[in-house]
């Protein structure tokens, strides 16, 4: 039911053409669309009711993300409504509650500033938060800050004396320089340089030296929702492909009657079904037993990466030359699959997590 209502809304407001129009206009964010989504209750899908949210849980958030993936919807849903909201929910002060309210209403957007190198590795960062009186001074460079070009606030992971600490600071604080990156998937990402940026104890999310108590659940929520978006993406590309197989004629026959293509399409569908099980499981596990969801989440994200890749490669190949043209939408799916795979840990990262958790 949630999926159906989401589909109706998204087909009207955010078909793939919406992403294309943004790209052609040189934009990476559509505040009007996000406002509409907030009015649907999506920005507050994880926000508790007393803070003005819908509090529907991760299984529901994954369903929304999957529907968004089908038409490559561009919005701060993952960064703000899933990742930041989950982090803030793990902090029980009034400031966090106010931030959750502002996320739910769509007024406030967030970006997660963790990565520093080419690959996702939150435990290997150099950005430092040096003690300075009662507060801190942050210095370092964050790369691939998704939605960092427009977000109002940043969640910055930095090293402190006894470990890692997560800071929640406004994106326009003195000493912060943002450089927008022209991304292959036409979505928003920035490089963010922090030069002696001032932070107070108030700006710490959770406890000093204990970032993971807040960040780990936030990352897992983001990874599961992103995996769900990727299965939606695979389904979107696959839908275009099967439609084409039933319409396109070559050598006097519908190409969908060729057994070699039938079997490849059927194999892809099987992979998608299996991945869908892993996604549904991750959403359920995050709602029912969040402390032990790491395996389910990494399984989902790893499988999603492999399945999305197969779906877009087959999508382009089965469409032939037209699949390579920019005028046709398949390329958008391929580019998003690559970027979504890389964000929050790729196949190798998550397969290694699964292996570790399964006693390899």
């Amino acid at each position, binding site marked *: 039911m949630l999926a159906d209502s989401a589909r109706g809304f998204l087909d009207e407001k955010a078909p793939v053409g919406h992403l294309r129009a943004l790209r052609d206009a040189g934009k990476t964010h559509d505040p009007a669309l996000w406002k509409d989504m907030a009015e649907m209750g999506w920005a507050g899908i994880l926000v508790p009711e007393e803070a003005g949210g819908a509090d529907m849980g991760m299984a529901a958030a994954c369903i929304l993300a999957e529907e968004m993936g089908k038409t490559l919807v561009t919005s701060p849903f993952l960064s703000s409504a899933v990742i930041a909201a989950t982090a803030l929910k793990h902090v029980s002060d009034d400031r966090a509650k106010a931030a959750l309210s502002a996320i739910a209403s769509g007024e406030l957007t967030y970006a997660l500033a963790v990565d520093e190198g080419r690959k996702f590795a939150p435990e290997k960062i150099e950005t430092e938060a040096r003690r300075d009186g009662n507060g801190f001074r942050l210095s370092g460079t964050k790369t691939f800050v998704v939605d960092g070009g427009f977000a109002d606030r940043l969640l910055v992971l930095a090293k402190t004396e006894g470990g890692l600490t997560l800071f929640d600071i406004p994106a326009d604080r003195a000493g912060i320089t943002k450089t927008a990156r022209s991304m292959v998937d036409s979505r928003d990402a920035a490089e963010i340089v922090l030069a002696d940026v001032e932070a107070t104890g108030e700006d710490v999310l959770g406890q000093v030296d204990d970032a993971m108590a807040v960040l780990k659940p936030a990352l897992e929520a983001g990874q599961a929702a992103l995996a769900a978006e990727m299965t939606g993406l695979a389904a979107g590309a696959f839908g275009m492909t099967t439609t084409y197989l*039933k319409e396109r004629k070559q050598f006097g026959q519908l190409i969908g009657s060729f057994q070699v293509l039938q079997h490849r399409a059927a194999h892809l569908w099987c992979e998608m079904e299996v991945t869908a099980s892993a996604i549904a499981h991750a959403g359920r596990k995050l709602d029912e037993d969040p402390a032990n969801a790491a395996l389910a989440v990494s399984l989902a994200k790893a499988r999603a990466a492999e399945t999305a890749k197969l779906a877009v490669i087959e999508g382009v190949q089965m469409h032939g030359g037209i699949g390579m043209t920019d005028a046709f939408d398949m390329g958008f799916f391929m580019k998003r699959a690559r970027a979504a795979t890389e964000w929050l840990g790729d196949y190798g990262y998550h397969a290694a997590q699964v292996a570790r958790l399964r006693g390899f």
Partner: protein
Amino acid sequence: MLDDLDQFRSETRAWLEENCPPEMRDGGRTEDSICWGGRNWVFTSDAQKTWLDRCAAKGLTVPTWPVEYGGAGYSREQEKVFLEELAAIDGRVPLRSFGIWMLGPALLKFGTHDQKLEFLPPIARGEIRWCQGYSEPGAGSDLASVQTKCEDKGDHYLVNGQKIWTSYADQADAIFALVRTDKDAPKHLGITFLLIDMETPGVTTRPIRLISGKSPFCETFFDDVVVPKEGRVVGTVNRGWDVAKYLLTHERTMISGGGGGITGGGRSLGAVLAEEGDALDDPVLRTSAMKTELDTLAIGLTIERYKDMAKAGQGTGDASAMLKYMGTELNKNRLELMMSVGGSDALEWDGPTGSRPADWLRTKANSIEGGTSEVMLGIISRRVLGLPG
């Protein structure tokens, strides 16, 4: 509702603790620990018989079947709890059989009340062992072209022909077979689903030796076999294909791992390989093992998801082709990996790795029996994806 299930769980746990003999708490992972039942069954121990009798008395050999047909009348959730608790004490599945996996579900759907009363309780109690007579030498993947002839002789049927790949036919008490009752009808419409006692004069079997060595497969011959008409046809004469198709979805689910747990029985491949020396130090092997583990977990979740959908009344018939295809290809990969880990040790019959070489070769049949992988992909492309025929 959840409280009820918690209560059920503690009752189940207590019952298992009291009733499952210590000898039956070894997981039952080897071929010869399986109890198949049947008239000629020789129990491997008193404990095996005790365990079967105790489970059968409570309907636990077929937990979800109705009580009047020998089951426990459990819901899918209750069955899950029972299986989880059984696994928790490493308890053996008390009885496995084609009657439970295949004929039972077909009778529950297509059988008359009398047929259910006659055939289901003996299956549940492990008193009758069934085998399946589908394939013929000339009808492998093209199953509907069965030629075994069944003539209506007024007061009885007369059956003549040959079946192949009849697993355990040499040990079975009875066979459910597809026979041709109308040779002039279109091939799917002249088939009947018939139950035949293996002790009937004219029925003979011969084992088939495979590349993996000794196998449960047989050839089964019918020479002027007389079958009573009363109560021996499941469904309608000439409409046996409907029954066969339904039953095939159960067979495919079973081969994919739903019935026998070939997806690793929940055991981590990492844990398995850790017992094999420094196998995981090889980066190529490690990568391959990681992928296999991911697939194992995700396919296991998919089997559960499809069982839940089936219980919720959502059709999964054609989708069982997916489980069969993915499960059997996974199993082949898994055994290739185990052979690679075993190195030259695994090249020796009954050597240091036990039955591994035979198991490895045997998996090659998984993607052939019950419909080949290619047939499965064909079913999916036509019936699920709607691609042109």
